[in-house]
């Protein structure tokens, strides 16, 4: 197997589009997304896998872009928050976050929204416990967790009958 030193062209498939970027082996997926491709939706929070702000979907599953080497992501389909909405139309999860006022400073929102959409593709009617488990790795320092849980329930359609 070839050893990879210095800068090389790597190929990434992000939001259905192919991107090439010159990156060094020590660059994380998060650094390449933000600094080389201008996709600043995934946020750099703790940078060590604790806060969930850098969450992206890899083959539909939420993963932490700060703990992935960009060079390791070349075979995968990556979805960032930029790829969730269709043109100017927001995805239903994003609409639900807006409607419930689940966005304050917005720093944790991309990660929360992506983790929610992954949860909703897995289970159609998640229980409150499922929602809390799916979002356990996402830190919100505005502490708007209740509104976020309400937004997930609204997106899942399980909020009815509560009002």
């Amino acid at each position, binding site marked *: *197997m070839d050893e990879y030193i210095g800068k090389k062209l790597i190929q990434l498939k992000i939001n259905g589009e192919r991107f090439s970027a010159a990156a*060094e082996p020590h660059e994380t997926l998060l650094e390449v997304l933000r600094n080389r491709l201008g996709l600043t939706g995934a946020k750099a929070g703790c940078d*060590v896998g604790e806060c969930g702000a850098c969450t992206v979907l890899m083959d539909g599953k939420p993963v*932490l872009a700060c703990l992935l080497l960009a*060079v390791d992501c070349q075979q995968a389909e990556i979805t960032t928050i930029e790829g969730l909405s269709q043109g100017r139309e927001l995805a239903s999860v994003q609409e639900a976050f807006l409607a419930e006022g689940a966005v304050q400073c917005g720093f944790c929102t991309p990660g929360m929204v992506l983790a929610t959409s992954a949860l909703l593709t897995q289970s159609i009617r998640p229980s409150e416990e499922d929602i809390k488990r799916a979002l356990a790795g996402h830190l919100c320092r505005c502490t708007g967790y209740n509104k976020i849980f309400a937004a997930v329930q609204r997106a899942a359609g399980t909020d009815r009958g509560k009002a």
Partner: protein
Amino acid sequence: MLLPKFSYVKAASLGEASRLLAAGDRKTCLAAGGTELLPRMKYGLVRPEKVISLKGVAAAAPERAADGSIRLDALMTLSAAAASSLIQAHAPVLAAAAAAVGSSEIRNMATLGGNLCQESRCLYYNQPHDFQFTMPCFKRGGDCCYFIPEGKKCRAVYMADTAPAFICLGAEVHIVGPRGVRRIPLEGLYRNDPLQPLTLSAGEILSGILIPARPAHRAEAFAKFSWRPGFEFSAVSVAAVLNLAEDRQTCRHARIAAGSLAAAPLRSPKAEAALKDKRLSTEAIAAAADQAAREIRPVPHHGYTRAYLRECHRVQVRRVLSTAMRPFAKT
């Protein structure tokens, strides 16, 4: 936080990775999920010249052998292990332990082998050190401890959650190395030395885990206490596996193991012996929990005192034993 520079190799097989690792003279690191290695590299706790990625090696699906044992690939992710119907049926204690690790994002990346081969951790040690001008602690090659200032030795603890579950299941690990494959009981992987927690020698890679066949009547459970699951490692994690007699109320053989209390996962042999051939009544369970808490002297870690951890351990043991027996409760 930037990663230090290194050269990168994507291994095509574990054999190749093992050869490169052996040739790397301890300056080469292995990355499976990367959730342990990358933060350690960002903090400057390890500075490899070369990183061997295992992302190019596909994880084999769990397999059930003719004798009823199951073999797990060490590269299986924790979320795959938690969701596997074979593991849920054969070893629910392991599925529960895998589901309890970190956040769903971490579980989607982290592997079973990586979890078992975790480095020991400490509140002082696991942080960036580039701002400090003090002498390094024991774990960083120095001769003092900042977590317990008068400490004469390193107090880092081993915090992997799946290890107690695997130990209770009597798991055996397969290790690929320069001299072929060796198989040892999982307990043999641990040295109980915070400075070097594992018995792996240069070039050795944990490749698989074998869980023995499941007896006809078995009760099992896992519990973990942590201030904030999803962000925090466990304060204490406990697994228990009880082989039951025909009546499904009497314990034939018990295994109880706890994690995060020392530099290795620890069993409670006296509590296990106390349960042997006993009816698993509420009183017997409480007595076994008291015994388990008496026989392990927890290492204080992450701000938890020894007394707190001891009490926490007792509660978790009682909890796993009663949870394990719940499906067999007489109505």
